[in-house]
C-alpha cells in the first residue's frame, strides 16, 4: 500500500494505492488522522489505483467520516471507486454514508 496526500485550498486529496487489509489499515488510518489532526476535515480519498479493501479499511473510513462530519465541519468523499470495492461497500451498506465522484477534479471542486 502506498499513500500520497496533496493539500488543496479547500480540501486534502489522499490517494491510496495497492491493498488495504488488517495489516495495512493502521497506516491508512494514520494518514487520515494526520489530516484531521491538522484541522483538515474536508477529505477526498482517491481509490483509482486501489486493488483491494477489506472491512478493516471500511472501519478507517467510517471513523474518519464521523470525525469529519462532527459540527458540520467537513466530510470525507470517495473518488473513482473500483467496481469490486464498490460492490463490497454496497454489501456492507456503506455507499450511503459517502458521496462518490468519478474523478478527483470533481471531488476537489465539490468542497
Amino acid at each position, binding site marked *: 500500500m502506498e499513500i500520497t496526500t496533496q493539500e488543496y485550498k479547500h480540501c486534502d486529496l489522499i490517494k491510496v494505492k495497492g491493498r488495504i487489509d488488517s495489516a495495512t489499515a493502521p497506516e491508512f488510518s494514520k494518514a487520515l488522522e494526520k489530516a484531521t489532526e491538522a484541522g483538515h476535515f474536508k477529505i477526498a480519498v482517491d481509490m483509482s489505483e486501489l486493488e*483491494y479493501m*477489506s472491512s478493516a479499511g471500511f472501519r478507517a473510513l467510517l471513523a474518519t467520516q*464521523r470525525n469529519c462530519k462532527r459540527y458540520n465541519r467537513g466530510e470525507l468523499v470517495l473518488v473513482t471507486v473500483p467496481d*469490486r470495492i464498490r*460492490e463490497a461497500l454496497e454489501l*456492507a451498506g456503506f455507499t450511503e*454514508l459517502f458521496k462518490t465522484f468519478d474523478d478527483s477534479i470533481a471531488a476537489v471542486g465539490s468542497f
Partner: protein
Amino acid sequence: MPPLHTYSVEAASIFLMPNKTFPAQFEFLDEIRELVAQVAREGGFTEKEIYSLQLAADEAASNIIEHAYEGVSNADLYITCDVHGNAITITMRDTGKAFDPSKVKQPNIKADLSDRQIGGLGVYLMRKLMDEVRYESNSRTGNLLTMVKRKG
C-alpha cells in the same frame, strides 16, 4: 450432493487441495488471499467471484487472528482450499478461543452514520459472500470454519 467416486476424490485431494499452514499474523493475509485466488482461478471461478472469495477468506482469517488468537503470538492457522465440481470449499482451523457466531450481533447496515457499528461486519460479509458458512468447535482439535461457494 452428487455421489463422488473414490478415485476422483483422491485425485482431487492430491492436485486441488493445498493444505497450508500460515503464521496467525495479519502480514500473511496477502498470501492467504493469493492461495484462495490461485485455487479459485484454476477451478474456473470468475474474477468477480475470486474477489468475493478473497474478501471472505480475509475477513475469516482476520477474525481468527484478532479474536480467537487474541493476545497469543506464535499461533498457526491451517487452511485448505479445494474445488469440487462447481463449488469451492475453504476451511480454516485454529486452536484459539472458540467462536460462537450466534453471539455476533448482525450489524444494522441501514443505521445512520453515528449509530453504525463496525463489529460483526466481517462475519456479515462472509455470510453474504459465501453460500455456506459453518463453525464447529472441538476441545481436542480446535475450531473449524468451513465456507462454501458455488459458481454463478
